[in-house]
């Protein structure tokens, strides 16, 4: 063999070549004997191809430079190693490499299921309140006292509404 395929998980020559069609999408994985055994590919009772694809698609050499999450310090190399993200903000930080990966992994790339209504409403409210507080301190700093008074009233109105307290 002139140019043998390498295993997607380690760099040994691949001897197990797997093609699976899930929901009309073709997925291909090349593995060496040892990784195939370790991942249970040879076990007819089932294994998770999506996990394999996830690991295989995470080549740190590919993609633009080394991405890093500002929020938790997680790097692309960390992701390759763990196969898990560091924090919710990582999904923004690694957006670029995520999208093609999700396309192969899921039925679609957009969430259409349940939405945490209560939590989101609370969050929006919290954001509005912080914005108002910012406006207030700005107004005071620039001596716009009429604006400041109006903003202060709005804030107290917000805080009085019983179910509209900001989250802890």
């Amino acid at each position: 063999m002139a140019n043998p395929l390498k295993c997607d998980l380690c760099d040994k020559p691949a001897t197990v070549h797997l093609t699976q069609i899930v929901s009309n999408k073709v997925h291909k994985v090349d593995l060496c004997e040892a990784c195939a055994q370790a991942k249970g590919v040879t076990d007819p009772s089932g294994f998770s191809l999506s996990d394999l694809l996830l690991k295989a698609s995470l080549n740190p050499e590919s993609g633009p430079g080394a991405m890093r999450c500002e929020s938790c310090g997680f790097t692309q190399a960390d992701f390759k190693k763990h196969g898990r993200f560091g924090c919710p903000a990582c999904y923004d930080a690694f957006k670029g490499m995520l999208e093609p990966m999700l396309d192969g992994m899921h039925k679609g790339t957009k969430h259409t299921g349940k939405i945490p209504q209560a939590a989101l409403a609370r969050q929006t409210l919290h954001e509005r309140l912080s914005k108002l507080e910012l406006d207030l301190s700005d107004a005071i700093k620039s001596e716009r006292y009429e604006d400041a008074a109006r903003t202060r009233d709005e804030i107290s109105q917000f805080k009085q509404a019983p179910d509209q307290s900001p989250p802890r």
Partner: protein
Amino acid sequence: MTIASLIASPSELTDAASNKTAIVLMTRIRLARNLAAQPFPGWAKPAQRTRIAEICTAAVAAATPLKRSLNVAVDQLGELEKQILVERHLISRELSGSKQGSSVIISKDQTVSVMVNEEDHLRIQVLRAGFQLKKTWNVINELDTALEASLDYAFSPTLGYLTACPTNLGTGMRASAMMHLPALVISSQMEKVVRAVNQLGMVVRGLFGEGSDASGSIFQISNQTTLGESEEEILKRLTSVLQSIIEHELNAREKLLEADSGKLFDKIGRAYGIMQNSHLLNSSEAMNLLSLIRLGIDLGVFPDANRSTIDRLFIEAQPGHLQHAQKGEFDPAQRDLLRAAHLRSEFANFVRPDFTLINSNGKN
């Protein structure tokens, strides 16, 4: 509630057995949820993990279905206790091996369990005996909504619930059914079924999840993908896949009876004989024999009233339960002796098989 009293009480899995649970033994749904602006458990520092656990356990323990529940840190549990919870599908293997800051809250009736700081901050699980995806979803959906009233979930309008692993994004939901498929195994059709199920975007695993073997002809079938479909759509798809597997299993049973009933009766009869007389049984062999007796019950060879005994023994034959019952830790060879002794005594007065009572299709 204490761990000791929880272990001593019967679980949903064994207590609710009826002919309605003939092929689908149990339905289970889990939701992965995380707190906004907190690192995921695998990346969080010990102090952060502790703080996250405090926030989560306080909210979970206050939810209605989890009042008077067991609420315990994983590092407070003994090895055997953890193993028992794994065998009852109440915690994962991953949680049982996790570091400080992980805990679990389990409802008194053992149908609801919430793992804190497993792979995600929260892994909420509801299980029900039999084929009850809709009911299970209603219960877990309500609990999730109740938790959301006090917890800020990490959520993105486009990606849904944000999870440590991108394979759980979106709904964060894994719905699964534990199925007993002896006829498909005996007639060597399981490989074909697994392949077909995979193509429909569902996964087949062994009794204890990823990487476990399928002894006892028990399989778990669950959805593979979580993003791009609503919970209802996923459940609808899973339901139709499960129904078609049930259909195939029933057909396979009919074929086995038509083609060579003698061979099938011999298997069931021998299983009965071994249960009554053996002195060494490893857990895999015990599971396979129990599976044959269970098939016998489905076919009418044994009375339906004995089903709950068999489902209980499926659990009691597991290493953790066996050692707990014998009040000690034993090596595998000693366990095989103890397991055989336990099954011998259970089968000493077990009604004899009557092969004239066979109902041709097993669809009782």
